[in-house]
Structures are given as structure tokens and as C-alpha cells.
């Protein structure tokens, strides 16, 4: 699905209320075009995970607007009724740890999302296979997650994030456990996928190794974003 990327306007999130309230996001403005990979960096406690959770529709923001593709999903309140289906069909997640389902083999770990959406097993698996090949883990398709190396697991989890061809991928520290070579490989894959499928990708990271790869970086500090041009090395 080709979308118009992500737009966030004046997004606010307050945890709790009264004396103990925490204003984690105080007005986030962000824009990610389809096919673009942007970095999101900031000190600990600055609100990175909170922003991903809002975008991932697992917590509700307090105010602002979020637009996914051409659909306003949040405007001072949810504009979609089925958040579960929104997550399943429109958003891909990649985590710091791969979190693969241990009792499913590699193919089914990736295909599961499509099966949950009601696609026939055969179609889901061949789509999964296609992605696994693209991510260079096709030869491990029948293996169980516990039989893979850390880097292979991470690539499988990227395949899972991409399998429903979401207009948006949210990656939370996807390279933290990897050495710099593998970390750069993961970023290269994300860039390739973004271009290939016109996906807007946000990568939350602390990782000095990969920060120079982004063309654009959003800094987040005390719940507010500052945009900055990155070096955009290595992937032109």
C-alpha cells in the first residue's frame, strides 16, 4: 500500500494526573515521507518510547494529531475504531529484541500476521518467503527461532514488521544488540525496504554507529522535537 507517510502535529501525552502527572510529550511535530528512514534520538526519559507507543496505537495521546498515509487516525481523540486492526494492517513493528514466537518456525513467524488478517496460509507463506529471501534468511525458513543467530533473528523480525507492507514501520532500538557491521546491515535493509515498498520508517536509537546514516534526524528533548539534517552517509 502506498501511503503519504507519517505526519504528527502538536502531539501531547501526559501520564497520570494531579500532582503526579508527567508530561512526557509536550508538542511533537514530525513528518516522514514514504520511502524515507528517519532517526529519532534523545536522552533517556525524553519521550521516545512514548511517541512510538502513541504512533503504534497502544497508548492514547492526550492531544494533537496523527496522520497515517491519508487517514487522520488521531485528532484530539482516536478517529479509527479498531486499533487492533490498525496495528495489524497499517503498522509494522521492529523491536530491540526480536521477540519471535518460539513455537513457530521462521516462515510462520513472518506469515502469522497475514494469517491473522485472514489470508490463506499458502499466500501468507509465499509472501513471507519472498521477504525472507530479500533479507537473506530464506535458507533458514524452516528453522525454529532458537536455532538462529542474533542477527538472523533480527532480520526475521524485520521481515515480520514488513510482511503486511505497512505504510509505516516503527523500530525501537533495532540495532542495540548488534555489532557495528550487523547494525549497519540492518539499517541498509530498512532503507532498501523503505524504498522498495514506499514505507515511512522511524528508527529510535541511541546507537552512535548508525546515527550518521540518517538523512534526517529528529532530536527529542523534554518532550519536544527538533529537526536536524543528518549526514545521510553510506546509502546514496
Amino acid at each position, binding site marked *: 500500500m502506498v501511503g503519504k507517510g507519517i505526519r504528527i502535529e502538536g502531539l501531547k501525552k501526559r501520564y497520570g494526573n494531579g500532582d503526579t502527572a508527567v508530561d512526557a510529550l509536550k508538542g511533537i511535530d514530525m513528518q516522514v515521507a514514504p520511502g524515507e528512514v528517519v532517526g529519532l534520538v534523545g536522552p533517556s526519559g525524553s519521550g521516545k518510547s512514548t511517541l512510538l507507543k502513541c504512533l503504534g496505537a*497502544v497508548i492514547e495521546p492526550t492531544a494533537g494529531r496523527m496522520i497515517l498515509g491519508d487517514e487522520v487516525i488521531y485528532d484530539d481523540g482516536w478517529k479509527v475504531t479498531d486499533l*487492533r486492526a490498525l496495528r*495489524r494492517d497499517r503498522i509494522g513493528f521492529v523491536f*530491540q529484541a526480536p*521477540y519471535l514466537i*518460539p513455537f513457530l518456525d521462521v516462515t510462520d513467524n513472518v506469515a*502469522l500476521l497475514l494469517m*491473522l488478517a485472514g489470508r490463506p496460509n499458502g499466500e501468507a507463506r509465499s509472501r513471507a518467503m519472498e521477504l525472507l529471501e530479500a533479507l537473506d534468511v530464506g535458507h533458514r525458513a524452516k528453522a525454529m527461532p532458537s536455532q538462529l543467530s542474533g542477527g538472523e533473528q533480527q532480520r526475521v523480525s524485520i521481515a515480520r514488521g514488513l510482511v503486511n507492507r505497512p505504510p509505516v514501520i*516503527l523500530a525501537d532500538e533495532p540495532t542495540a544488540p548488534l555489532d557495528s557491521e550487523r547494525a549497519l546491515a540492518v539499517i541498509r535493509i530498512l532503507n532498501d525496504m523503505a524504498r522498495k515498498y514506499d514505507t515511512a520508517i522511524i528508527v529510535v536509537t541511541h546507537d552512535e554507529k548508525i546515527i550518521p546514516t540518517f538523512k534526517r534526524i529528529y532530536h527529542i528533548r523534554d518532550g519536544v522535537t527538533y529537526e536536524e539534517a543528518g549526514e545521510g552517509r553510506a546509502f546514496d
Partner: protein
Amino acid sequence: MISLAGRDILHAWGKFVFTGIGLGLLIGATFTMAGVYRGMVDDAKVMLDNSGADLWVVQQDTLGPYAEPSSIYDDTYRSILSISGVARAANVTYLTMQVRQGERDVRVLVTGVTADGPGTPGWPPYLVAGRQITRSHYEAVADIATGFKLGDRLQIRRNQYTVVGLTRRMVSSSGDPMVFIPLKDAQEAQFLKDNDAIVRSRARTSQNPALNRPGVPGLLDAVITSQSTNPYVNAVLVQLEAGHVSEDVAGSISRWKRLKVYDRAQMENILVGKLIATSARQIGMFMMILTIVSAAIVAFIIYTLTMGKIREIAVLKLIGTRNRTIAALIMQQAIALGLIGFVVGKITATLWGPFFPKHVLLLPLDAVIGLVAVVVICILSSIIAIRAALKVDPAEAIGG
């Protein structure tokens, strides 16, 4: 869609199989308890059937002869025979005791039957070996469960009996196999005092001037004879003539003879409802405890397995899995565990049943009830784990 529960079970099959076997042994024990109860009921019915009686005539105001002691004169049967509708009537005695054979002794129900020939009420209806009792003394027919063999010599009280026939499935409602001996011997066995007591009793009688009158020759002998014989039996078994209703005949017997009469259905009620009622409640308690333990095991195992997958469940939720799918995953695993347990339980109960000292009767209906109960219990036991899984916040998958 693939079966998540099935994949998880295949992945962790060792856990499932071993837990299932453990659960199965508990379920097997539960089935066996039910089987013991069914066996007791069945034994009671078989005993009533095999007695060949339509009516049991016993002492007034008693629930005899099986559930309460009952004693009536041994000539009562004659007058019962004269009542219209009665085809046959025969005395019978029952006495539970240890019978010696060689070095061992066996707990049996010694049954005294009249030696009127086969078909007499109280006689074992069929033999698996040997013959029925033909002499009126010192012959015995034993249930095969006693372990006695043809020609064995049994010691009952002071007398020796020869086993001349073997029968099967003749047991008391407490599961003791029956040994049939001639009525006269049985009456003596019930009444018999030890030698010292007889000597003392004779001496006391002869010292009693009212019973030992010099002017009345033969009085003392008559008194002593009457003191040392037993003119009582426990019940009279009655067979009806065809075409007579048991209530009518029972009515006339109790009216004319001032005795209590039970028909087949009433007798069954007494045995099942009174005699084995306490045992049945006992078994019921055991079954309840076993059921609770089984449910606790299923709940604990399923909860532990679910808690071990909490991260994966958060991921599943984050990527849009329905709560229903996650609940089904857990519930199906609980049911699968239950089904493994059921199969193991059914097999073990069937295998070890014959080794139980009492008759264990496994009814197919009980197995069906058991299956339904296992599935229901497993579903209920999985609720705790399901609730925990549904509480998992998909945001946890994203982390801090």
C-alpha cells in the same frame, strides 16, 4: 490460519506429555473410585439376582438380612409355603467370617442354604466347576474369588468342609466372596459356643432346681438340647408363582406372619441406599478431592506455561492478534492437556482395575461423564491464565 495451540504443544510436547501422564494417573484414580462404587452396586444387584428370590422375609422392624441382623424361626418357611402365590420358600443364613484353608484364612460370607436341590432360592445359580451340595453336612461351594480349589478342606468353626463346587461373581455387597454350606451346619456355626462355655452352661442348667427336677426324667436332657441348638435363620427367600404380584403376596405374608417382607426393588434400595451409602459418600469425597487436585494441577501448569510466554503474548497483541485468539490458544492447550490426561486415565484405570481387591466396574457412561467433566474442568482451570494473558498490555512489547 494455523493452530497456535497445536504448534505450541508440539514445540513443548515433553512438558505436555509428562504433565498429561501425571494428570492421567489422577484421572485414572478418579475413574477407579467411580468404578469401585459401580462395582459395589453391581455386586449388590448380582447378589440379589443370584439369590433367585422374589421376596425376602425377615424379622419385623429390621432391614435384614444384609443391612441389619434379622432372625426368624427356621420353621417359618413352612407356613409361608402355604400362602397363595408362593412357589418356593427356603431358609437362608448369612455370616461374615474368616475361613481357614491350610495356612491362610479368607474373609468370606458363609451362606447356609437348604439342601433341597438346585433351583432352591439361595443356591448359587451356576457353577464353573464341580457340583452343587448334595449331602446335608460338611460340603461347600465356594466363589472362585476365594482362591479355593475343588477338594480343598475348609475349616469353619470347629468343622472341616470339602469344596465340591466353584461358582463365580457371588460376592457380598462389601466384596467378600461367598461360601455356601448346608443350612444345618451354618446354623450351628452361627450359634456355636466353645467347649468350655458348653460345659459351664450344662453345669449351670443341671444346678438349676427348676430345670433339673428329680421327679421329671428327661427334662434336663430336653432343656440342654434346646439350649445347644439354633432354631433360627436370618431370612426366608421366597419365589413367587407365575402371575402373582409381589405386593399382594408380600402383604399377606407380613399380615399373617407378622414378619417384614421386602421385594427385589426394596431390597436393592436398602443395599444401595443404606448398606453401601457410607462407602459411597466416602468414595464421593475422594473423587471430589482428586478432582480438585486435578483442576489445581491443570490451572497451575497452564498458568505457568502462559506466564512463560507473556512477552510473546504482548507481541501477538501488538501485531493485532484478537483477544479471542489468545484465549483460544490457552484454552485449547488446557483441553489438550485434559484429553491426554483422560486417555491416560482411562487406560490406566482399565489396566489396573483387575488388580484391585474389590470389583471395579468401569461403565462407558462414566467414561463419557468423565470426559465431559475433564473438558469442563480444564476450561475452568484455564480461566486464571486467560485473564492474566488478556491483562497483558501490548505496550509492554515496545518496552520503556
